[in-house]
């Protein structure tokens, strides 16, 4: 995840963000970065800065919405939540991702 500059990795990061928001509800950017790292057991070490272009991309596509609120340490922070069309996109991309990984696994398992 250190160089999310190809389309494919864009897609992967988008997918992870959508999934995180879908599971955990509204979160701010810092939370999202940490959850992804945490849940992946530090396998996916996010270059945290690259999260923000991804969030902006999802905002532009209206897959997430954002509003300003108060963080758990009582400061103004921006919270993101997934939208209905974001959920649709999540379902679609999850399916594609599974097909893709299954195909890669099949190829790796051939002798």
């Amino acid at each position: 995840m250190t160089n999310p500059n190809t389309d494919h990795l864009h897609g992967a990061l988008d997918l992870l963000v959508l999934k995180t928001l879908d599971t955990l509800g509204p979160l701010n950017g810092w939370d999202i970065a940490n959850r992804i790292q945490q849940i992946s057991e530090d396998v996916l070490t996010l270059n945290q800065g690259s999260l923000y272009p991804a969030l902006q991309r999802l905002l532009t596509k209206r897959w997430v919405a954002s509003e300003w609120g108060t963080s758990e340490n009582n400061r103004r922070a921006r919270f993101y939540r997934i939208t209905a069309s974001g959920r649709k996109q999540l379902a679609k991309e999850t399916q594609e991702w599974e097909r893709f990984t299954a195909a890669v696994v099949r190829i790796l398992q051939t002798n």
Partner: protein
Amino acid sequence: MLREFFYRIGALFHRSKLDREMDEEMQYHLERETEENLRRGMNPEDARRSALRSFGGVLKAKEQSRDERGLRPLEDIWMDLRYGVRSLRKNPGFTLTAVLTLALCLGANLTIFAVVDSILLRPLPFPDADQLVTVFNTYPKAGVERDGSSLTNYYERRGNVNAFSELAAYREGTAIIGEAGSTEREQIMRVSPEFFATLGVGPATGRAFTDEETAYQTDGVAILTNAYWRQHLGADPNVLGREIRVDGFQKKVIGVLPPSFLPLLTGTALPPPFVQPRGSLTRPATYGK
């Protein structure tokens, strides 16, 4: 797709607000990460540095976010425009010269086109306009290609050239029109009685000239162009029979031309062409058809 487009358009108009929010958001992120590092036991300096390191380039992240946000090409055009306006404002002399040059060129273009349009592109406003010709005298040995014809020429051609179904003579000039004290110089045309029949368009009201009105004693009549009738006589509906003074002579108005008639003419149209005693019509002389 459409909603995304609207979002991008909207982002164009809220750029500074969105930039501010982005700054604040990333600032929050770095502070939060620093706090977390402090909690893990780092000293303040390391905590800050480590937060920056795991964030990656802040400027790069901002730049990429902007790219995702709006209509980059439009934003670039907008920036270019603003830059252009600023540089123009810095060089008023150059700006003035450039603007004046452009204005002059546009004006000249417009004028030329208007003339070309009315002379070359539009057909003459007469029926069978493609059959109308202007007849000139030429004197090759004297090197004169086009000259007017004399009255004798005109009558000769009228009687003897079968190629023309109709022939008329005219002469352009100017005359002083109006009573003493309120006169104006107007363009006029002196024409032979067949003039209107030759062109195929006559006065909209009133009548054309007759042969009797070509004599010196009986030529006290005039036909007005539509523009002159409107501008100087208030489009008087009872204009027929009114007297106007042309070069000091009383003339009775016997007709008014339709608005479409020869837009090049502004003044009256007068009979007969033959006010000059020697009959030397010097200007292009004869319309044939």
